[in-house]
């Protein structure tokens, strides 16, 4: 399972191949080696390298070109993971699998167009929280008509008598349409 973002246009096939190759290269790495990987035919030629960090069962892999600071990217990955941890409250692998869209949203607050946007964790988390609140409130409003319908369906309406006899006045109650 992997979550990926490609910032350059590539065919779906190529994207999948890149993912497979990345997985292959990274999973071969020992524990005591450095976090930088080169080579790999599809990863943009010799100018690009893979920088990865290993957390429990997960690898976070960033593909960067030679203009990025390698050590800086290591810190960036750390900030990303810490941010995920804060947003998901003790993030685990399943969180990332089942909430891929949230992962995308968080990443979008840190990296944009292939460039670093924001590294202050508090700012990122504040923004994400605000957006999530917005979504929740919209879900509340949108859910209202559906909830109303189902509430009415389930209401127990008292029987309306067809004829109300009040002494000698006879009032005929019209046939009201049923609520069903």
């Amino acid at each position, binding site marked *: 399972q*992997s*979550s*990926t*973002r490609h*910032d350059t*246009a*590539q065919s*779906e096939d190529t*994207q*999948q191949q890149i993912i497979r190759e990345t997985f292959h290269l990274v999973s071969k790495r*020992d524990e*005591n*080696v*450095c*976090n*930088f*990987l*080169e*080579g790999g035919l599809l990863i943009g030629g010799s100018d690009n390298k893979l920088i990865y960090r290993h957390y429990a069962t997960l690898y976070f892999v960033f593909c960067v070109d030679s*203009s990025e*600071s*390698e*050590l*800086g990217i*290591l*810190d*960036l990955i*750390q*900030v990303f993971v810490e941010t995920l941890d804060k947003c998901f409250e003790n993030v685990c692998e399943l969180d990332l*699998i*089942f909430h*891929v*869209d949230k992962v*995308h*949203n968080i990443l*979008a607050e840190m990296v*944009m*167009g292939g*460039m*670093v*946007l*924001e*590294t*202050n*964790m*508090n*700012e990122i988390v504040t*923004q994400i929280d*605000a*957006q999530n609140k*917005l*979504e929740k409130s*919209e*879900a509340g409003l*949108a859910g209202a008509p*559906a909830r109303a319908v189902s509430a009415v369906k389930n209401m127990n309406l008292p029987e309306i008598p067809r004829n109300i006899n009040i002494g000698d006045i006879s009032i005929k109650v019209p046939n009201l349409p049923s609520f069903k």
Partner: protein
Amino acid sequence: MLVPSLKVQDLIEEIRGAKTQAQEREVIQKECAHIRASFRDGDPLHRHRQLAKLLYVHMLGYPAHFGQMECLKLIASPRFTDKRVGYLGAMLLLDERQDAHLLITNSIKNDLSQGTQAVQGLALCTLSTMGSAEMCRDLATEVEKLLLQPSPYVRKKAVLTAVHMIRKVPELSTVFLPPCAQLLHERHHGILLGTITLIMELCERSPAALKHFRKVVPQLVQILRTLLTTGYSTEHSISGVSDPFLQVQILRLLRILGRNHEESSETMNDLLAQVATNTDTSRNAGNAVLFETVLTILDIRSAAGLRVLAVNILGRFLLNSDKNIRYVALTSLLRLVQSDHSAVQRHRPTVVECLQEPDTSLSRRALELSLALVNSSNVRAMTQELQGFLQSCPTDLRADCASGILLAAERYAPTKRWHIDTILRVLTTAGAHVRDDAVANLTQLIGGAQELHAYSVRRLYCALAEDISQQPLVQVAAWCIGEYGDLLLEGSCEEIEPLQVEEEEVLALLERVLQSHMSLPATRGYALTALMKLSTRLRGDNNRIRQVVSIYGSCLDVELQQRAVEYDTLFRKYDHMRAAILEKMPLVERGGPQVDEEAKESKEARLLEAAPVPTEPQASKLLDLLDLLDGPSEDAQHPRPLDPSPGGALVHLLDLPCAPPPAAPIPNLKVFEREGLQLSLSFVRPPETPALLLITVTATNTSGGDVTHFICQAAVPKSFQLQLQAPSGDTVPAQGGLPMTQLLRILNPNKAPLRLKLRLTYTHFGQSVQEIFEVNNLPVETWQ
């Protein structure tokens, strides 16, 4: 009635529940059918959920193009939830190559001008990820307005979007340059980070911008100083270093501004010294800053003392126990090896030690750096180390290591004998990984070293006797034994132990090579020819050789069969000429290594019809032999001119009668100009050879940035013959530096109208450029 659709999480769970690939496919196909139906029915409430599912499935590699239009609808919806998924979908599905991508331009425009902050953020994010050139042009003004918005959140995104826009549409630099001065006064780190990235992009694209921004060096120095001492905010600190990301970016910008500029370099000198000495290196963040500082110091016109400090820091890092630090140190030293060669040389022993690293990323870097450090004084020691490395290194590094050693040997060989020994050792250790021209080079080398013929043939014979599997080695050995077989039998040679070899043994060895299933067809060709040559070198009777030759006359391999038949004929019908034909070969001239490169590059160009410059002396030697068999009256001593193209164009040149009077000089033609790089052609028609046109391509560079990796290729119509000679270099230095020249020889025997197409590839201002164009307005004197 609405069919209740799966929530995204439920779908994910189903997919994960699938036990096989086929099952997964089934689940997904079923769900996609539902999604498609839902899109058709146009259910607005659940559209975002359907698209979210589709995007998940897309991530797994399944097609999702039918969701493209839904992205548009979602983006146009007023709800944030819809927009969020819609924009994400746009980023994942609607890249530039899809026709539909332009349709979101209008929605983005509306969102940028009227949306809430969050919505503006979404729009900017999408624009900076997949915005095409047309989109960028349309939306530039909107983004520009947002640079002045009160919200820092929006502004920081707008700044980075501006960077993307400039990359797509360089003319927009004029729009985004003015706001930079203002933006640099921001206190918000995100905006500052983006602004500095923007300024770097502007400077890299235009020397005028670079000049303009030199003014802000003092301001940048101030920002960095403040970060170091008080820090803007503790919020941005990583392991105790205040906002290392911002520090690194500032340092990179300072590097660009200070390069080749005394005044700016001086302004930043003190600050750089301060950072270099005060940064806490116990954690990664500090090291990241320190490294960037070192790179900046070494790239600008810094004081000598500071440079020494910087290289020493790198040296210290090379000894650090942290592998990442060592890796970055090796990478940085590689960058310096051209400019500060002697400083880097001091660390050679440490670098060589790094070759022993089990980590391939590190050993690869160490290999590159080691090869770059070889010079004439350390070549013996370094080659020794590298040979050791070659024996044990991982397979993906072998080819590089082998060719690196061979190249270094060629450049710095102290003696011919050492050179031959070195190549021999490489072929024995890693024969399968050497480049094709190694064989030709070695035979050339041996052929030219007459005093070493005996030595070479003995060493090669011993090597071959031990192992007949390494093809390049076998080929060279077979050739050598064939040429110098008589020296092999003569018994004494001072330089190695005396070797007693019998004729029968030699023949047996060659026969083994011929018969071995490990031998490539080319190798067997060498062996057969060698056997044939031995018929005149050895003193015994030739029955054994004749037998072998006649057997191979019915070999299935056509090439081998042809040779065998011809040799057989030589025995039977032309025996009187055999000795003359099989005499020792004269030394064949070959092109230098640059010409080899040229030939390789021309061969690789699929678009062009340029004829490769001939560099295969081996092939032509065999050609000689076969040609000579056709024309028995020709003298074996004069080698044919090297030309693999069937027409034998150069022969025509020699045949042409003498000449018409010299023609008037043809005017030069300027054919290309881009950002300061100019290409012009000058023409010469030598009077003795009317069919020949010599074109000199001259490349000059008046811009502020060097042009590197420059390759020029040419193509002409089929009736012409084209030869590209090696260029004078592949770099055209900036600001009117030494121009690069390249000679084209065009033969036009039919006097057809000349058409010429040129293809240029190069790097300029950090961008790769490729240009293909036809040369217009060629003067008629070039072909008439």
